[in-house]
């Protein structure tokens, strides 16, 4: 009972935070410099891990699927299989899980330490709304950068798949690319971009909420950080299921 009440309370607080962010979007000031800075720190700063994640995921997809496809004599569709898996599922989910680990935890830790060292109060005392100055820029940054990084992850993954197909499985690269191109369909891409946009929002809002609801000093900051990663990862995977269902029935099944 207590658990349920607590869960309802947390959801209510999250909704309130979201509402305050949305309402703030239509009232000046909008901190443009902060938004750009967060895009750089959260987005550009994550490029390396996303490149590595994409490359190896594409490679291992090609490796695993080629084996099975060979049994049916359709090894030539490796490219399509790799690209489809990446665009639909693995690109968005892996990119955003990596972001939840790297960036969501960072947001929670940063805002949490600002809270316990009274910097958030100092900000309010000096006439700044911390929601607008800290939360909104992070949300805007992640909602735009998560899809961007996902596209990069998809591209690099497809390249990784090609490298494996040509060097280790001895497929001509033209076969692979021609097959991969067949996966690139307008609706697939739209579907593949909706997911990371939603996930980016989840990572940012959960990170900010965890940080700003920190209790109990420095130890509390550690707890908030862990909580933000756990909650946003689980939400990403759960929401991915729901979104996949919706995207398949609305965009792809016709």
């Amino acid at each position: 009972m207590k658990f349920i009440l607590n869960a309802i309370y947390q959801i209510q607080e999250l909704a309130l935070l979201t509402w305050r962010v949305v309402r703030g979007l239509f009232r000046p000031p909008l901190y443009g410099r902060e938004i750009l800075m967060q895009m750089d720190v959260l987005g550009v700063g994550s490029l390396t891990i996303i490149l590595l994640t994409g490359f190896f995921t594409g490679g291992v997809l090609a490796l695993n699927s080629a084996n099975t496809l060979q049994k049916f004599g359709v090894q030539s569709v490796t490219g399509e299989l790799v690209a489809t898996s990446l665009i639909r599922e693995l690109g968005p989910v892996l990119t955003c899980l990596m972001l939840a680990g790297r960036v969501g935890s960072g947001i929670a830790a940063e805002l949490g330490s600002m809270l316990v060292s009274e910097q958030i109060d100092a900000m309010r005392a000096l006439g700044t709304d911390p929601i607008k100055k800290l939360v909104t820029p992070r949300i805007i940054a992640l909602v735009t950068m998560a899809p961007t990084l996902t596209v990069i992850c998809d591209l690099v993954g497809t390249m990784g798949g090609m490298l494996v197909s040509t060097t280790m499985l001895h497929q001509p690269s033209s076969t692979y690319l021609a097959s991969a191109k067949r996966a690139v369909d307008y609706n697939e891409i739209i579907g593949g971009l909706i997911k990371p946009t939603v996930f980016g929002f989840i990572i940012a809002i959960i990170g900010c909420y965890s940080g700003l609801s920190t209790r109990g000093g420095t130890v509390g900051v550690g707890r908030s950080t862990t909580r933000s990663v756990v909650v946003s990862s689980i939400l990403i995977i759960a929401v991915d299921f729901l979104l996949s269902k919706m995207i398949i029935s609305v965009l792809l099944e016709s």
Partner: protein
Amino acid sequence: MSGNHYAIEFQGVSLAFDGNVILNRVSFGVRYGEAKIVMGGSGTGKSTLLRLTLGLIKPDEGRILIDGEDITDYSEEKMMEVRGKVGMVFQEGALFDSLSVYDNVAYRLRETRVAESEIGSIVMRMLRFVDLEDAAGKMPNELSGGMRRRVGIARALVGNPKIILYDEPTAGLDPITARTICELVLKLRDLEEVSSIFVTHRLQDIDVLSREYVMRDDRGDIVFMHEDETLCLLNTQFIMLREGNVIFNGTDEELRASGDPYIRKFLA
């Protein structure tokens, strides 16, 4: 506002956190130009009192007035305007650690979109006041505890607020640095007529603030004077908090003469 003598007034303010009563019907007033020294053991709600004054948290009961204005039910937006009149020096400085000393002090000016050309001279004047001109380019983590507090004071003074709240600005500092901070407080009290709440545990602070004062001599230089038998400083008053209640409210002479065993122990 006619008839109002108080820069800050608490009327029967109560607050509880998770069922623990922190403040129990606390009432007091800080007159214009007065320094109210708030004492009490740790956890008695001194910081909470200051946070209430700034409207960072709201009381469960009672009214809080700033400069004659009842702020108890103000929204965060309306509160932002009131906070322009109030400077707050946080317990550990609460400096923004991603910003340099200069940018910390300039923070409020940038938020209110003051022209960058004017910011420089204001910031340097504030840093000169706390004797930290040389530290302008440093980051907060390069500063000592005393320097952090002084930057906190400089940041709070931007915009010349007529009300300043100090949360244990001398705690954990060596006697010389603590004295420097008290002297800043004296200058603001006596030369700028700032009204303030000053939270402290330190007896040395109590002595300095209740017995010394600052004047300008004939040449306009600042001189520190000592209270003597013929003169009694009325612009410094004391409050002692204990278990959520105000157990003392008066002058330092009354405080020192008090027979209350808790106060005697506190002053021992």
